[in-house]
């Protein structure tokens, strides 16, 4: 009897507590509704931490021009954080109107939330090849945020002192000769080593380095990679040769060398002649040494047979509009994205404030302020890019957790190269079954 009574009491009390909580939250809701009667509210969840302030400033400008629209921006740090926060928000029913997706596997996962953007002006303006990752039949499910490109970033002064002309480096043999020349003179040049290979970073090994040697067998097409049952590693030997070269002439021990050591401590302080990175390092180098960043660095393509002189460039993330929202919110979101990439104000902000390499036509290249981005945009204009980052189309996690990890084992001497290839192929096939 007694225990029954007390059990009843617990239930009663919990009920009261729940009611109290519910009561609080519902009263808040009605307040909000009152204040936004004839306004459209767009919630944006975006991943680029680097442009947080600039993006918010731009949003204010848009709100002033369009009094009927209210935009809330939420910025969540890149990589895993963004993915998991977005997923949590969506499964909690608190989905944003505009968010970012990475490639075919994200599209697959969020498909039911993605509105078709084919009728927007931004799609018209998008550069060729930048939409492949989000294209399905005649639907376009995302808009490219920007372009990024990478290659071997080199120290112009060191190259000059060593008597090397960066433009002469075309084939792998040229690169090898240049590296040996630099290595012989490294004491006079004040270098610790020629390269800094950050083998601690799985994304450098598994995503970027590997991508260049994997992409050609899928014709540089993300969709093709996404639907491939297997991978052949046609350029596996070239990949090995390139890794060996970097490893042999790198600052050691490479397995504990990370991105910040590579870019800030070693490259910016001119302790190494070359690093394989992309245009995103510009700001870090600038923070360390503005003069060096503006005049002392250049980028040269990694020689891949058959693609000499091409720089891998691609779209890291796309804007997606949540199609489950009310029609007017969807429309307002599309209008905002159009404005962002096709209006004069938007274009200026994209170039000058965000410092993006635009993925759209009709931009004034002269306004791209940093030399790396400019060089990459020039490569893109000349049609000398590997379009599409094929690694976004590989099985989820395969690039880093399988290939990257295996390459780490190879570099530390715990795995033979043949095994790296065979184990990576095996994992790809099991994932795609």
């Amino acid at each position: 009897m007694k225990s029954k009574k007390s059990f009843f009491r617990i239930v009663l009390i919990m009920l009261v507590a729940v009611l109290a909580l519910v009561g609080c939250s519902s009263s808040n809701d009605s307040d909000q509704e009152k204040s936004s009667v004839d306004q459209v509210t767009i919630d944006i969840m975006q991943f680029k931490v680097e442009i947080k302030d600039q993006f918010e400033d731009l949003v204010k400008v848009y709100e002033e021009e369009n009094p009927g629209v209210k935009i809330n921006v939420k910025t969540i740090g890149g990589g895993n954080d963004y993915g998991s926060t977005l997923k949590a928000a969506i499964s909690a029913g608190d989905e944003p109107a505009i968010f970012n997706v990475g490639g075919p596997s994200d599209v697959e996962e969020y498909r039911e939330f993605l509105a078709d953007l084919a009728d927007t002006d931004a799609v018209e303006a998008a550069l060729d090849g930048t939409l492949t990752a989000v294209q399905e039949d005649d639907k376009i499910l995302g808009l490219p945020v920007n372009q990024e490109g990478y290659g071997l970033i080199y120290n112009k002064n060191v190259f000059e002192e060593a008597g090397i002309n960066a433009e002469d480096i075309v084939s792998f043999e040229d690169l090898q000769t240049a590296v040996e020349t630099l290595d012989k003179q490294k004491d006079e040049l004040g270098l610790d080593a020629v390269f800094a290979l950050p083998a601690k970073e799985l994304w450098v090994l598994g995503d970027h380095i590997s991508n260049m040697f994997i992409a050609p067998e899928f014709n540089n097409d993300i969709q093709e990679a996404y639907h491939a049952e297997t991978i052949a590693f046609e350029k596996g030997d070239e990949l090995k040769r390139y890794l060996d070269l970097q490893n042999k002439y790198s600052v050691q021990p490479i397995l504990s060398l990370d991105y910040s050591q590579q870019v800030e401590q070693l490259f910016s302080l001119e302790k190494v002649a070359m690093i394989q990175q992309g245009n995103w390092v510009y700001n870090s180098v600038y923070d360390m040494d503005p003069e060096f960043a503006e005049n002392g660095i250049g980028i040269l393509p990694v020689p891949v047979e058959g693609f000499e002189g091409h720089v891998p460039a691609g779209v890291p993330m796309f804007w997606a509009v949540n199609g489950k929202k009310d029609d007017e919110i969807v429309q307002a979101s599309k209008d905002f994205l159009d404005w962002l990439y096709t209006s004069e104000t938007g274009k200026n902000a994209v170039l000058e404030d965000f410092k993006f390499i635009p993925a759209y036509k009709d931009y004034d290249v002269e306004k791209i302020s940093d030399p790396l981005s400019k060089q990459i945009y020039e490569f893109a204009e000349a049609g000398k890019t590997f379009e599409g980052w094929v690694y976004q189309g590989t099985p989820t996690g395969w690039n880093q957790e399988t290939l990257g990890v295996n390459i780490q084992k190879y570099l530390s001497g715990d795995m033979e190269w043949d095994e790296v290839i065979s184990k990576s192929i095996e994992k790809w096939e099991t994932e795609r079954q």
Partner: protein
Amino acid sequence: MRNRDISFWLFLAPVLLGLSLVILIPFLYGFVYSFTNWNGLTATEFLGFKNYITLFKDAEFRASIWFTTKFAIVSVVLLNFIGLGLALLVTRKMRSSNLMRTIFFMPNLIGGLILGFIWQFIFINVFGSLGDLLGIEALTGWLSTTATGFWGLVILTSWQMAGYIMIIYIAYLESIPKDLIEAAKIDGANSFQRFRNITFPLVAPAFTVSMFLTLSNSFQIYDQNLSLTNGGPYNSTQMVAMNIVKTAFTENKMAYAQSQAVIFFIIVALVAITQVYYNKKREVDL
């Protein structure tokens, strides 16, 4: 506990509510999801034990469990040894003992992530330059092999948690009646005999508490692991918690990660219960 009137439950209600909302219900949900193909958004299929079967074939998961177990054994021993040592040191009548207590406890106030980065700097840069300077090969390249990564983690955790364990031992050491020690002294027991026959049995409850804390903590380490080695080189210093997070968010296999978490929960619970049971048996009452 006899007079469970309305006010008793009234005071308990917020906690019960919070506990069930934040721990109990998510836990049950997670348990259910581990039998499906849940991807974080929807579950379309009931898979039965398929996730669990895959799990027992997963070499990487096994490796991370083995690594975590090794780590837990070493750090439980070291932490209790150092913790008790420090406690004995600062309970002697010394002028600086209060200051020393503060200093030993301090690392515990710094977050695991930051500590990881600080020690990463020490292991790589400080050790590296020292090694170059003194010509000691063994000091360079820390954290780039599995063995140094392991000891790096052990050193970091011991440094962080020893002060906390010390506090627990101090509390028990100070509650030992002075007259017992004095009586032993008069009987002619030397300081080792006094420690062995009086202090040690009387701090047994402290062993129960701190072994439980160190054990469960070492099993669950994530932030230090993330910032110090990030599982590298080649995921060989990846502990279970990190393996689960990676499976869930990098490989995007939410349900599979859930099943890993369930197995992990069972292992930790079994180990902790066994440990507390055996430790309790050893305790003596005055």
